[in-house]
């Protein structure tokens, strides 16, 4: 256990925004469990967390698989004995594939649901006993697409809205146990965003035009620190909210 005694789990943390969140938590000296399907990349991020001042641990996990999730939480319970925070950041590898809704196959949709929605359901349920014992905090990485829909990312926007719905429900259901549940809607430079810009060549100009601060967010210094706030005691009276970390892009909040 790190000197601060805080232990958090970040899913989908082998790169991009998840990596940024893990590094921001590591910089505060926290124990950070990196859960990802990509073993090598996850281990590399764990090393970065340790180098940043925390203690990184990597574990391979498929969040859409109940057994894999159970093994993940068993490992944390066995090694750390506690869990103060859970960040569900994992998202489908197809998230950045843009196209008309009629081109979305059943397999595409199932993959979105499996990682974003089912993944949150499985990980949150499995983590609840540890989170309740620690009066911990859950943060879900959703998107501005969850609030306004997306013309060419209909499946992604749908499951991101479902995540926000689950946050609103869990905040009310778990509040009495002292567990807070919030969401963030980041707009960050990441490999997924880069792929989306390639997938839809007009997207980059559209995205950048609507950001008053004139840039994409940094995964660690803009997004990670905001998530760390929601995980920490400074946010102890905040639950059921979606924090837009998007440079002012979203027209709704």
């Amino acid at each position, binding site marked *: 256990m790190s000197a601060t005694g805080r232990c958090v789990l970040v899913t989908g943390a082998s790169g991009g925004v998840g990596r940024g969140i893990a590094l921001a938590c590591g910089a505060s000296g926290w124990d950070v469990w990196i859960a990802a399907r990509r073993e090598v990349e996850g281990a590399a991020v764990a090393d970065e967390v340790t180098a940043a001042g925390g203690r990184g641990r990597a574990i391979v996990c498929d969040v859409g698989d109940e057994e894999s999730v159970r093994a993940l939480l068993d490992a944390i319970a066995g090694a750390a004995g506690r869990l103060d925070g859970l960040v569900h950041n994992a998202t489908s590898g197809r998230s950045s594939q843009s196209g008309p809704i009629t081109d979305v196959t059943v397999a595409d949709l199932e993959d979105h649901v499996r990682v974003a929605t089912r993944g949150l359901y499985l990980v949150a349920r499995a983590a609840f006993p540890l989170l309740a014992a620690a009066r911990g905090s859950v943060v879900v990485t959703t998107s501005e*697409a969850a609030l306004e829909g997306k013309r060419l990312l209909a499946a992604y926007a*749908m499951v991101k809205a479902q995540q926000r719905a689950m946050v*609103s429900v869990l905040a009310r259901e778990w509040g009495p146990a002292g567990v807070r549940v919030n969401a963030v809607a980041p707009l960050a430079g990441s490999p997924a965003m880069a792929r989306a810009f390639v997938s839809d060549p007009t997207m980059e100009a559209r995205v950048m035009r609507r950001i008053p601060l004139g840039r994409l967010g940094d995964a660690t210094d803009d997004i990670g620190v905001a998530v760390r706030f929601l995980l920490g005691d400074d946010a102890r009276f905040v639950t059921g909210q979606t924090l837009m970390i998007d440079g002012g892009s979203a027209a709704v909040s």
Partner: protein
Amino acid sequence: MPTTFIGTGSADAGTLALALGAAPSATSPEPPAAATWDWDWRGLLTGWRSEVAALPAADQVVVCTWPDPAPRVELLELGPVRWRREVEWPTALWFTTLAVATGRCRDGGAIVVVVDRPAPLDAPGHGAAVTVGDGVVNLVRSLAATEGGRGVRVNAVLSARPVAPRDLAGSPTPLTTSPGRVDVEIAGAVRMLLSDDGAGLTGTVLPATGGHP
């Protein structure tokens, strides 16, 4: 004006179709009673997609997603099989339905999707309905952006049928008629959005819930 009505086989969906003067054009399939956690629904969805795609084109399309009421249960207690039936299946069903049904609406027409979505204060115990409902509502927003170019409006009407009056949380509902009668309050909201009175509305969500927050 003929209306294509696509909905569940629930009694309330039938009442809504009748109130709108529309014969149900297609009734959505139900999961098999023995559906398990790893139930493969692709065959069922493929058949349903074909059925909806074969519907005649219309100027007005109503999609009513109301399921039969399910017992109130917190998400932590909702087991995997119920999760699969009450969240993942309707998500796949209504995504597939709307993807195809939108194409059955003629240029310049209107689509209204009717969704159960308990208010945030009433959300505990209704996690499945809230999750499905918010997903469908956001799909409506995506489709409104897609279809606007050909003059098709896409909107949603929210209902709160799963919440029994005794379970309402927070301040009293402004209208004592909440959650509203299907054939009066909810049908009225649908009619408005289908009509020329709603010509400037697309991507909107109209809660026909008596003002309950």
